[in-house]
């Protein structure tokens, strides 16, 4: 297990390095001048040149890349071109909002998707199962920004149950939770569908296995068989799915952050790409890539711990 964890961690580091190298190449291929955007139309060519020199933007891309990497090891992600603030500070201000949003989205998926899939499996081939199937597929098919807009109009504007914009007052947990409900529902709804279908299929497989049949033969209550013996095994594949799903939710969070005017890492990267704010793009992508890689690493290690056969495959 230790060797597996070591190998998997080395692979995670390689993934982060490749992702950053790829990103660095891509953002410098795209045309655009951060100095023009940052300084506005009134800046003279001399002021722009001084700005580029000050920010190191006049260096070759490879030099900038290695300078960036060397700074990363000291925890320095550079300086924001626009506000002159430290990128680390800006990224770590935004990241908790995205983590909270992603975790809540997963929360919705687990809270609704697992029971729905389980319930469908227990009532398989009934009209209730079919309705649940239609709901699950519809939840997968509807884009999260559409869910976001309708959730806003219904629950914020018409019913006024939940707040529409922002992330809530700092230090007011209740307010922050209220501001999380709609955006997390918007990004989590699709995953409710995925989990429901996966858990249903997995449950059906497990419910047909010998030990379940044996448990029934012993006369154990059906409720105990389902929740104690079947569901425990059936949810294992969802661990892998959620590991990958976190990556999708992180990237999907940008829609929710724009529609609900929430701060967050997704919006931060989006704005930075548009304005060619390279230090922010590099810093934020490094941190989110590391986060995603850590999540998949954690899910892989969890699976390997639960199922020893997996350890031999890396």
């Amino acid at each position: 297990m230790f060797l597996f964890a070591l190998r998997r961690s080395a692979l995670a580091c390689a993934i982060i390095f490749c992702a950053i190298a790829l990103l660095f190449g891509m953002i410098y291929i795209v045309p655009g001048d951060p100095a023009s955007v940052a300084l506005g139309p009134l800046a003279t060519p001399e002021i722009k040149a001084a700005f580029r020199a000050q920010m190191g933007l006049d260096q070759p891309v490879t030099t900038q890349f290695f300078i960036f990497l060397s700074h990363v090891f000291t925890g320095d992600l550079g300086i924001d071109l626009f506000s002159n603030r430290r990128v680390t500070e800006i990224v770590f201000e935004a990241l908790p909002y995205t983590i909270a949003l992603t975790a809540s989205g997963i929360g919705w998926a687990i809270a609704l998707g697992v029971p729905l899939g389980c319930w469908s499996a227990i009532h398989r081939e009934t009209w209730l199962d079919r309705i649940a199937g239609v709901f699950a597929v519809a939840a997968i098919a509807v884009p999260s920004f559409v869910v976001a807009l309708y959730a806003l109009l219904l629950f914020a504007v018409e019913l006024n149950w939940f707040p529409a914009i922002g992330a809530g007052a700092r230090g007011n947990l209740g307010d922050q939770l209220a501001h999380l409900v709609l955006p997390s529902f918007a990004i989590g709804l699709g995953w409710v569908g995925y989990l429901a279908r996966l858990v249903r299929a997995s449950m059906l497989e497990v419910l047909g296995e010998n030990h379940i049949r044996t448990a029934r033969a012993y006369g154990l209550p059906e409720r105990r068989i389902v929740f104690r013996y079947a569901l425990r095994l059936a949810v294992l594949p969802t661990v892998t799915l959620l590991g990958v799903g976190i990556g999708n939710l992180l990237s999907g969070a940008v829609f929710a952050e724009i529609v609900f005017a929430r701060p967050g890492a997704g919006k931060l990267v989006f704005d930075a790409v548009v304005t060619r704010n390279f230090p922010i793009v590099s810093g934020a992508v490094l941190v989110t890539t590391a986060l995603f890689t850590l999540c998949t690493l954690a899910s892989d290690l969890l699976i390997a711990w639960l199922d020893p056969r997996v350890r031999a495959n890396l």
Partner: protein
Amino acid sequence: MRRPHVTRRQFIEGSAGLWVTAALLPRAASAQGTSVLRVRSYGDIQDFDPAFSKAAPDGDVARCVFRKLIDYKSSTSWEWELDAAADVKQVDPKTVSFTLKSGIKWTNGFGEMTADDVKYSFERIADPATKSPYKGDWATLDKVEVTGPLSGVIHLKEPFAPLWLSTLPWNAGLILCKKAMEASGNRFTTNPPATCGAYLLKEWQPKQETILVRNPDYNGPKPAYDEIRIRPIEDEKTAEIGFAAKELDFTGASVSSLPKLKTDPPAGAKLAIRPSLAYVWLGMNVDVPPFNDVRLRKAVQKAVDVDAILQAAYFGAADRATGIIAPGLLGHRDIKPPPRDLEGAKKLMAEAGKSGGGVKATLAILNKTERLTAAQVIQANLAEIGIEVQIDAHDSGTFWSLGDQSKGDQWKQLHMILQRYTMAPDPSWAVAWFLPSQIGVWNWERWNSPEFDELNKKALVETDAKKRGEMYVRMQDLMEESGAYVFLTHEVAGVIYRDNVAPALMPDGRVILPGFAPKA
């Protein structure tokens, strides 16, 4: 010892309780006694040091926390009123004297505002060593002479007409505390070392909220709200939803929403529509084919159906422009623009030997809905005279460097540009980008007119408003005669606000936050 055990039922009940609590808490929190104004800004503050401020949201906050000698009045015409100055007057075309009000206090124990602070603030921007992009606002500043603790004289090297409309009441006129600035290295971004305005910057939550609270030491008219919360919301539609959900008291409205807001505004809301200072035009690069032929440029001028563009892209809410200087400003061209002349355009195409069509051209636009719609109308219009237009939509990072000659030869690929600039309320701001010295910088049409250049120089120092206005009209005539420009619109600025709020607005709809007041 027993391990704490949470049953499934307890977990579900607990979670449900948490959400319900979350839903109720904010309502309880908002029911407090302080008067709070919640406004939307299109962007977050980035840097409100007057020498380096980035955008209008910086200026909005700076206006709340700093003072100027004079500031704009909340009005429908461009007028100013005294702010930090008890008296300010033009002694002669090159000299302005001022006296500060007494008792204007800086925060953080930096004492009273003095004429030294004024000298420091204005000369700092003019100083080439500061490398301020706003150096041009004080282009003719010679020096500020301090004649007493509260009095001084601004000496100009030559007359400077924009001083009263776009320098003193704009960002370049903000007064900083000399002692505090020197103690903090002569630079700040979002954490000013000392302020003196009607409001204090209480808290800045990046990308989420800027909270201003009333300055107890402010000696001007007492601001009406205890607290102003500015929320940066880039997307206008999101802001409109936030307003409909009663989470904002004031926001700008998108042009596409104006027709509906006029006929069916949200309950308890009011709509105000102001003429914008922005100018939108279709430009043609005169240095490369096909538009190096003036006949083709003039054919485009005649063929573009501006009224159709205004209907399609601006929902009929914006009026047609006659030039680059908006109505209400000195130098506005008060003419009736000619209607579309398709036959005239075809005739010009024939004269240029292009009656068979086959002319191909690119049209560069910023990737925004109304620009794309306008570009599609232009594409259809020009197809009728045999010009095949390829629309190239760019994001802002790419778009704003397309015509920059220092970036290489990409400007040679520019044929037509759908462009929008905005300006301070002095005509010099509108014409500054079309000078020969701006070719390859911001003059992407690369139109080179020595007469235009000469008129600009004269207009900057002309103190007779009538003569100055005539010069700017002539400059726009020259632009039109070149064929390189099709003037489209100045757009409109729509704002919505609660009916219990009396907003303080500049003529173009920009906010003067300290002037907002509750309405009975």
